[in-house]
């Protein structure tokens, strides 16, 4: 089965991650594709509200505590055909500090879900749980807004992802001493990642090659949400370009979702946005984004370009 797991994440709260996740799900479901939305915001789940539903059991917590045999059992029907939802847990304290083995079980079950489209709505921040959910998706989508705080946190989030990818590989190849070196060097300046790889290539080319390939395999996408003018749309393109150049990862810009006052009204009315505003500019942007995302499966799976070793 051609399975798609998309994770919607980002460094800052309030950028519209849940909005994008819910409406992408609604759009795909309207195309007769079976979709499971998972509210993986472990700290503040509210995806059900964006779909006009109330918090109730079963939820993600029931699966994680073992009350339910599988994640599939926690996926409840929504008022929308082809769309199921795994609600976020109300037991915030327990869930936010998820044990490692529970996280692995969850990730395994997400991959085993029989639905062809799975969308994970992630929480804010750079906890290992959030980063691992983001990295397990193909691709992960970073949602940002045209504000300095949001852009700053986007870079921080991506840096955290990069460090997590590199750490996982370092652990696997048992080169943990490099981890501290990376942490010391990477915080210095914008070109510190380059500096880290350059010095690694000089000291140990084989490990440098492995880690650089691992980094190039991480290929997230970017969405600029709440764009108010053309400048905001272009800002998304600039951010992706800066990420490619300074953070050395191949980021794809999916496009901008225009700001719409109606979103607020939909929220107040406890009604999902997409079905009532199919002809709005934001809904059109979401449709276009889903097409780009469908294509980006190939983008993320193909061999990353430009893998050429630097001369040490």
């Amino acid at each position: 089965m051609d399975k798609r797991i998309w994770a919607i994440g980002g460094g800052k709260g309030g950028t519209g991650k849940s909005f994008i996740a819910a409406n992408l799900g609604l759009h795909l479901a309207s195309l007769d594709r079976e979709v499971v939305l998972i509210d993986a915001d472990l700290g503040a789940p509210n995806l059900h509200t964006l779909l006009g539903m109330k918090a109730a059991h079963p939820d993600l917590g029931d699966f994680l505590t073992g009350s339910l045999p599988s994640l599939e059992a926690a996926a409840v029907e929504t008022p929308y055909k082809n769309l199921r939802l795994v609600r976020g847990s109300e037991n915030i304290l327990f869930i936010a500090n998820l044990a490692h083995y529970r996280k692995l079980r969850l990730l395994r079950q997400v991959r085993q879900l029989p639905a062809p489209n799975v969308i994970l709505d992630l929480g804010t921040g750079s906890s290992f749980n959030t980063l691992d959910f983001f990295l397990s998706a193909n691709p992960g989508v970073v949602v940002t807004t045209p504000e300095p705080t949001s852009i700053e946190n986007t870079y921080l989030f991506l840096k955290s992802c990069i460090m997590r990818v590199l750490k996982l590989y370092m652990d696997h190849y048992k080169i943990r001493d490099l981890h501290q070196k990376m942490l010391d060097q990477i915080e210095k300046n914008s070109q510190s990642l380059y500096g880290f790889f350059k010095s690694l290539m000089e000291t140990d080319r084989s490990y440098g090659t492995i880690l650089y390939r691992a980094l190039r395999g991480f290929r997230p996408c970017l969405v600029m949400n709440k764009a108010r003018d053309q400048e905001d749309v272009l800002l998304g393109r600039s951010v992706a370009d800066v990420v490619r150049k300074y953070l050395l990862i191949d980021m794809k810009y999916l496009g901008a979702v225009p700001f719409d006052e109606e979103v607020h009204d939909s929220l107040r009315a406890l009604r999902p946005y997409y079905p009532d505003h199919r002809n709005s500019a934001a809904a059109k942007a979401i449709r276009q984004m889903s097409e780009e995302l469908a294509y980006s499966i190939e983008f993320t799976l193909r061999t990353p370009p430009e893998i050429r070793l630097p001369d040490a």
Partner: protein
Amino acid sequence: MLKRIEDWNYYELLSVERTASQDEIWEGYQAALSTYKDGSLALYGLVSEVERGLILERIQEAFQTLRDPDKRKEYDLALLRHAPYFPPQAPFRKSVGKLEIEEAPPRKTLGARLKRLFVKNP
């Protein structure tokens, strides 16, 4: 390719292909200007003011070179000597097997052989 920003070539600076038309170069130049302009949000929290100034200088240099056909030709030749370029859209064959099949001479069918035997100038 892992490169220092100072080592980016003009095409990489403007984020265009080496086969880019003059219009594409102009668009790339405008996009680069908006990315690295004073107070650009895209650089917030990642790129320092000094670095921004340096890159902006190189962007100007890149545009001045690539907009002039003679200068561009000269630059391309120098670049080719340094690193050969393979256009990403270049058609290529996926497997050796296919290559052999495509380039093999057409099969001589029985009809063609008989025709050759009986017709002097086919």
